[in-house]
């Protein structure tokens, strides 16, 4: 199942990106969420509490990888910092080592939305590029 072919999921990724305020050096922060399977077998998104400038803490999952009683099939979060920020600091754009570790420990795939690209982390923590953010989230870019 290609989760990013689901308009509802893509809309939530797009909303998380907008809410990250990537263009505001003071307000930029990480957002994220779990992609879950609803009781009617449709997919939904359970958003996480707002993160910090460069990290975010996902809510705990239960032993069955469920959250709020729903099976979690993937996670996503944003990387709002630019390659080089306004003060000259350089930021990794792709998944960090702690991102990879988090996904590997939970055997859970995920997506990272950055300024230019959307990355995928598989359950073994391998990283691939899905495509350009503007294109992957094109149907739901802010209007």
């Amino acid at each position, binding site marked *: 199942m290609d989760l990013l072919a689901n308009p509802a999921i893509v809309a939530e990724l797009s909303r998380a990106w907008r809410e990250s305020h990537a263009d505001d050096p003071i307000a930029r922060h990480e957002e994220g969420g779990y992609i879950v399977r609803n009781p009617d077998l449709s997919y939904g998104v359970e958003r996480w509490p707002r993160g910090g400038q*460069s*990290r975010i803490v996902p809510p705990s999952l239960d032993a069955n990888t469920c959250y709020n009683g729903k099976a979690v099939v993937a996670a996503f979060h944003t990387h709002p910092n630019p390659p080089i920020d306004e003060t000259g600091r350089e*930021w990794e754009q792709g998944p960090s080592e702690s991102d990879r570790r988090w996904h590997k420990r939970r055997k859970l795939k995920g997506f990272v939305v950055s300024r230019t690209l959307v990355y995928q982390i598989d359950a073994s923590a391998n990283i691939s590029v899905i495509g350009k953010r503007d294109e992957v989230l094109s149907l739901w870019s802010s209007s």
Partner: protein
Amino acid sequence: MVLLLNPLLEGLEAARRAAADVIDANDEVTVDDQGDHWLFEFIPRGDALGGGARVSVAKDDFRILKVIRGQ
């Protein structure tokens, strides 16, 4: 008295100072010997995604060559 410092530890402290805004004292640290410099990687422990940094430090004078912050 002559005080001998471990160069690797001095390099580590330089790396810590250079990335102090994004690392934590409890972060896991790895080091990769790259010949003329060390590459230190700080990896946060716990359940957070992001954070940490990769810092390159010159061996000869402990100059900071590069800092890449994780997110």
